[in-house]
């Protein structure tokens, strides 16, 4: 069965493009676009991997990730963080919050795909 990836991102055209690339690679892609109920979305979808944007409406990606890591049910899911910032401090914050990988926008589709495969152990 295809691995399930939950893409939490508020930019609709990124959702469409990255969603297309991942589906073309045979992955089952689900999407969610706001920060407020992102944790509920992860619980509901129970994905194999989460791709999480840092700046989301209603709640920051760091906060969501911290809560996710504290949750026994979903805390072990690998998370690929996407951010528009490239400063050392942001990388540090992502690592501290528990990100499995960290990518800075703008990124190449191939780089995202490679990171996703690696995190899924493929």
């Amino acid at each position, binding site marked *: 069965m295809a691995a399930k990836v939950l893409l939490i991102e508020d*930019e609709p*055209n*990124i959702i*469409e*493009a*990255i969603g*297309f*690339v991942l589906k*073309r690679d045979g992955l089952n892609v689900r999407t969610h676009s706001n920060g407020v109920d992102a944790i509920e979305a992860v619980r509901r979808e129970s994905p194999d991997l989460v791709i999480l*944007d*840092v*700046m989301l409406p209603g709640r920051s990606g760091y906060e969501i990730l911290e809560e996710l890591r504290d949750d026994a049910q979903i805390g072990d899911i690998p998370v690929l963080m996407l*951010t*528009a*910032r490239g*400063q050392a*401090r942001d990388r540090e914050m992502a690592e501290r919050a528990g990100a499995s990988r960290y990518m800075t*926008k*703008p*990124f*190449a*589709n*191939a780089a995202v795909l490679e990171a996703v495969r690696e995190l899924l152990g493929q």
Partner: protein
Amino acid sequence: MAKNDVAASGLAGTRIRERRLLAGIKQAELAVRAEISPSYLNLIEHNRRRIGGSVLLRLAEALGVEPAVLTQGPAAALVSGLREIAARAPERADEAETVEEFAERFPVWAGRLIQSQAEIARLEQSVDALTDRLTHDPDLAGRLHEVLSVVTAIRSTASILVETPEIEPQWRDRFHRNIHQDSRRLAEGAEALVSYLDAAPGEALGAVSPQEELDAFLDVHGHHFPPLERRDGGTVARILDGAEELRSDAARMMALEWLNQYRRDARDLPLDAMARAVADLGPDPLAIAAHLKADAVMVCRRLAALPQDMVGEIGYVLCDGAGALVRRRAVAGFATPRGTGACPLWPVFHALGQASTPLKATVMQATRDARPMTAYAVCEVTGPSTYGSPAPRRAHMLLIPERQPSESVPEAAEEVGITCRVCSRSACPARREPSILREAF
């Protein structure tokens, strides 16, 4: 005070006098700045009174020198400056022992070294302030994130189109539409970002020049200083003592001058009289000047220094004879540029050329957040004219947001910009440089 300090400060009066004469300041003027009587200053200057504590600090500040320069002489100040530099490299502690000899033998080079170190420290502070601004300004971070997200969407979508020649027509059309849509959003987002970076510093932004330090200091106080409104006259020095925003000596000197002017204005046009005039006549500087039989320029300064609950929303711009913005009170809906020259169409610049004609106009900037403003502009002649040399001038402009029943723009509003760099007006006779917005997009 240590024993050798007492001995050294015996000639402090002579040094104060020398410094004062060097700076071209009259004794009476220095006494006012230091908030002491001229006769007391005279006794100090003739070494008939020993000084220390707050009087010494105020005199040093008024003369723009370190207190040590007055109490211990320049050599001690040099040694102390060099010791500070040496302390930054503790691994070379042995060399620190030679600073006295160095200051004694090469006082000019020692002075230059200290000056260079101060400049490095100032630049480091600027870099820290700018880094801090990028890191902690949520508005800026949000705008950058938006622009980079759109760039990411365009890049990802374009890659798909290039790498997937066999893509289905409906997907191809959809991605073409997305790229078109995103390119427009990118242009708008980048324009907003550039406008934001070019606008004057607000509370969230770090001050990187003495001018900005003073602006930040005035912003923190809402441009209003209740102690200076009292008839017994509050002390300027006390206000400056606690001013964390004024980091450089230059900024403190500028603040001192501005607050002394404030105190004189408050004495001549007391707060209660201004409050009654504003309540009766509105924030119209000419009407208030006529009513109070006062100078219109002083009324402008007083209006710009009133608390918002008394005068309502009000903006203020002061430009010097070269058109440089030297003071500003921000008002929402009318942005002022940082770093570059302001839009030449602002009424304040028209007023600069017409010393005897105050101006009133309705203006509105061609930006997304703009609001129509009533602008009052008055030119001030700040010194005498001499043969072949015109009198120096500066101009004041007050900006009062117009109360509109709706979001409509008044027909009479003249469209103005922030600064040419971020202005997209196509045919502007006053343009001094091409707009980067039009060039880029």
